């Protein structure tokens, strides 16, 4: 091969001896030179001393040449340009403003790329430039087609960097990576650069130069995360764990507010500022009623914030009842009281709190108070402080007058109208006989009353009669079959009498009456609450006396269980149900849908019922029509609501049967909110980019910096194509010269008296 094929050379050893042999030879030669020198170092004549040392060194050199076989390696070398990777963020967070009221981050990035066209061209003359777009994935991209409307679902900066580093072709060295992004990572680096991430960045083996986009809109406060159970128990404390992020804030006390459909239920202040970005806040509250509610956690929007959309976050919480909490207030021990208490105490679904008046002020126990087990009647505690903790309040043959309770009756009525439940059971201290006429209690009762008098009680025995309403109502359903149900009621023992009342109120329903039409059981609604009036103090006859007549206590137990479930609005006993398809809907993608179930008066499917929906939001509680439908043969209907902007919503559904009669009302709550972290955790993160740059010995780039001036690493790489070796001094002349030198040294040593 002609020498013109090689464009480089280097000195090399052609010896085939092992390295240790060469090392041993080198050591031996050094020792020989040293020993020789020791022999003549006392020689007074300098010329002789230098001559002997020179011959010995020359001999050693010639031996080394023989052993190492020096040669020239001729090489054919070529030079390869290194590559750099330019990465541009194409995730959806880039659609947010780069600065308050400024262009979007994507637009800002496009503007930067256009301003650096020449810069990029110069870079391309020195390096191979690979351009990528990245979000969740990394993909090659034409820089000219950078979109102002990016759609990437998430941001994974580390994945993009490692992918770009590994994607090089032709074994080109990586001179560095350039990444333009807002840094709003929601993958590996969302919590910052961890040790694992640092190790991954080191493996890049190239500097990362980062251009922060939107860094001028650094100030942002966000409700980043809410952690709460899917359901909670009424009257049990619920804790909502909120993570608030604050960037670009000085020391500031930020109120974090939890609202249930616009009403504040908890709030706490958190001091933000300094280096810390995330703050955990616990908001606790006690739900006071059951149902499904939309909650919103919010922080104020401060001036100059990058994003206002992430300052609140909504969620749906289903509040259920662990046990029905019943307050039973009794005017006097009686068999009616005893059997009801026994029933409620045995029911594992009931938490019974009872107060019996065991002694009236007129009774004389012939003892001191300390000899009695009686306790004061804690009226204020029960009827003022604890009232809202009860699902149901029962007055059983209880006259409020002796206990100065008039001041609390307004509160009890308000409690019922606000969704509570109330039952009054008859006796000589109930209804009109209990002096409830013209009191707030009369206002909520389904019957009217009159002042106490001899006509307040009717002691004519009562043969029960199931009314038309009673035949359809769940409270009086002892058997699913209509005739059997009527028969079951008619077989029960006669009651010894009833409390008499005035006319029924509008909307109330008589479920049981005497055969002559005297009301025995009346139900109604007061505001959002339900009320039951049992105008007898002998419902225990349906248990114990019926048992004596070989009927057993089933009727009594079924009646009271159904009554309590109806009073506290057990969902299984409501004629209407509505459930949103999901608790949360993605804004702009799919409209919310509701599934409605309507029952008829007989609690069967209400085919053809006209259903209407109104929706209201936490921000705007005014109901707006949102849809309508007709129930199918199975009484079901699906209603798709119009697209709604992000927020917490309540849908209220009403229905009318084909005959025009109202079925009832049902509610459900849902939220419309982005589920993607990309749109929630969208605050620019220049700090993250700084950390990445530091970990890779790169740096953060200003928008005005020229890319060509960045300290890219290893701009070129040398590759060797062909090579050949030519030996030096590999001939007899070297051997002859060695013999002459050794012989000359030996001769001189003999002549000058050295052995």
């Amino acid at each position, binding site marked *: 091969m002609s020498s013109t094929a090689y464009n480089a050379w280097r000195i090399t050893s052609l010896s085939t001896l092992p390295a240790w042999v060469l090392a041993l030879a080198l050591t031996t030669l050094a020792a020989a030179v040293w020993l020789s020198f020791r022999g003549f170092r006392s020689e007074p004549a300098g010329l002789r001393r230098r001559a002997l040392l020179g011959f010995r060194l020359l001999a050693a050199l010639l031996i080394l040449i023989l052993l190492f076989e020096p040669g020239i390696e001729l090489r054919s070398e070529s030079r390869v340009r290194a590559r750099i990777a330019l990465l541009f963020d194409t995730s959806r967070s880039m659609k947010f403003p780069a600065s308050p009221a400024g262009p979007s981050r994507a637009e800002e990035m496009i503007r930067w790329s256009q301003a650096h066209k020449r810069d990029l061209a110069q870079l391309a003359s020195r390096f191979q430039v690979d351009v990528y777009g990245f979000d969740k994935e990394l993909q090659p991209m034409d820089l000219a087609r950078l979109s102002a409307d990016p759609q990437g679902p998430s941001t994974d900066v580390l994945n993009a960097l490692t992918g770009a580093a590994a994607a090089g072709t032709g074994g080109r060295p990586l001179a560095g990576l350039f990444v333009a992004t807002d840094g709003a990572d929601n993958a590996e680096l969302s919590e910052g650069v961890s040790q694992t991430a640092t190790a991954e960045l080191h493996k890049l083996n190239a500097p990362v130069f980062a251009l922060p986009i939107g860094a001028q809109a650094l100030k942002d406060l966000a409700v980043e995360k809410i952690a709460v159970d899917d359901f909670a128990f009424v009257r049990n404390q619920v804790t909502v764990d909120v993570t608030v992020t604050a960037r670009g804030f000085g020391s500031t006390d930020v109120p974090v507010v939890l609202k249930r459909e616009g009403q504040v239920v908890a709030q706490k202040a958190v001091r933000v500022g300094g280096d810390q970005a995330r703050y955990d806040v616990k908001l606790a509250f006690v739900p006071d009623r059951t149902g499904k509610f939309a909650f919103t956690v919010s922080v104020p929007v401060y001036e100059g914030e990058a994003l206002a959309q992430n300052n609140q976050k909504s969620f749906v919480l289903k509040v259920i009842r662990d046990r029905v909490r019943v307050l039973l207030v009794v005017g006097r*021990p*009686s*068999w009616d009281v*005893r059997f009801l208490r*026994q029933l409620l105490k045995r029911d594992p679904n009931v938490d019974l709190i*009872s107060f019996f008046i065991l002694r009236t002020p007129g009774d004389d126990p012939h003892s001191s108070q300390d000899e009695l087990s009686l306790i004061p009647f804690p009226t204020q505690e029960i009827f003022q402080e604890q009232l809202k903790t009860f699902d149901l309040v029962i007055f059983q043959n209880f006259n409020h007058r*002796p206990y100065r309770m008039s001041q609390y009756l307004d509160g009890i009525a308000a409690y019922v109208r606000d969704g509570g439940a109330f039952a009054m059971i008859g006796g000589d201290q109930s209804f009109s006989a209990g002096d409830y006429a013209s009191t707030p209690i009369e206002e909520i009762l389904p019957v009217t009353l009159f002042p106490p008098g001899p006509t307040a009680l009717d002691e004519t025995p009562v043969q029960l009669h199931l009314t038309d309403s009673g035949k359809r109502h769940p409270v009086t359903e002892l058997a699913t079959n209509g005739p059997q149900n009527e028969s079951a009621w008619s077989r029960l023992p006669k*009651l010894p009498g009833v409390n008499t009342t005035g006319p029924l109120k509008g909307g109330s329903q008589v479920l049981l009456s005497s055969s002559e039409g005297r009301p025995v059981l009346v139900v109604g609604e007061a505001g959002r609450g339900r009320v039951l009036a049992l105008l007898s*103090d002998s419902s225990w006859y349906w248990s114990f006396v019926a048992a004596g007549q070989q009927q057993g206590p089933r009727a009594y137990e079924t009646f009271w269980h159904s009554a309590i479930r109806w009073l506290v609005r057990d969902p299984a006993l409501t004629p209407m149900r509505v459930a949103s398809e999901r608790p949360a809907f993605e804004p702009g993608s799919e409209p919310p849908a509701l599934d409605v179930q309507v029952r008829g008066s007989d609690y069967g499917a209400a085919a053809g019922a006209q259903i209407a929906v109104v929706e209201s939001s936490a921000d705007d509680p005014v109901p707006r029509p949102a849809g309508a439908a007709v129930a199918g043969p199975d009484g079901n209907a699906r209603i798709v609501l119009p697209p709604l902007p992000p927020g917490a919503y309540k849908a209220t559904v009403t229905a009318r049967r084909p005959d025009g009669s109202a079925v009832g009302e049902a509610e459900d709550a849902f939220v419309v909110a982005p589920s993607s972290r990309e749109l929630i955790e969208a605050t620019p993160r220049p700090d993250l980019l700084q950390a990445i740059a530091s970990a890779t010995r790169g740096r953060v780039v200003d928008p005005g910096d020229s890319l060509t001036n960045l300290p890219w690493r290893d701009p070129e790489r040398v590759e060797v194509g062909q090579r050949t070796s030519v030996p030096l001094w590999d001939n007899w002349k070297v051997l002859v010269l060695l013999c002459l030198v050794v012989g000359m040294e030996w001769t001189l040593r003999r002549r000058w008296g050295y052995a």
Partner: protein
Amino acid sequence: MFSRRQFLGLPVLLAAGRALAFGDQARFTFAQVRHAGRWDPRPDGLSRLAWEIAKRTSIETSPVVKAIGFADPELFYYPLAVLSSDSGFPAPAENEIAELRRYLSYGGFLLVDDASGARGGPFEQSARLLVSRIVPGAQLARIPREHVVYKSFYLLDGPAGRVAATPDLEGLELGGRVAVLYSGNDLVGALARDALGAWEFEVSPGGELQREKCIRLGVNIAMYALCLDYKEDQVHIPFIMKRRRI
């Protein structure tokens, strides 16, 4: 919250008076079980106890005592029945036992009072045999002093009766409550009066204080029958514990 003084000052408000309940059937009425032996040894005792209950508590009582047989269908209108005698009584028939079992199972309460006051006497033997037939194999068990029957109205430290033959009340529990309560000390006898209104029997060994204790135990038994374990509710416990320490 009411203070004790306020609570005790309420009688003025009671002037509103009490209306009648729905006839006698709504009132607390004793039923006296009519068996084949001497079933009514203390004819006036239960009426007197009913009067004391009405006078001392908010319970409305009927002075009439209903005499009724084991198998009488009307028994179920009277959830508290008293079985008493001063001598043994013939064993009831099987159908009567079945009815009594049914009565007790569905919520009835049977007070068994040994009017003889003789421990291990014929009545006690008959009563224990009866209990073992109501629930086959069951036996009366001692009622502990912490039981709610000793604190259902008065705070009592033990049983009482015309005599002090037995140191404890005994009972049979059904469904978590005492359904049969046995007193071996002639409780009702201590309350009986003669036609002239005088106490019919001396009580021993405690005299009139013992008689008062008998009335209080009678009140507590009636209160327990009507309120069951009401005084075991959490709200009462601190008050009762405090007064027990006094």
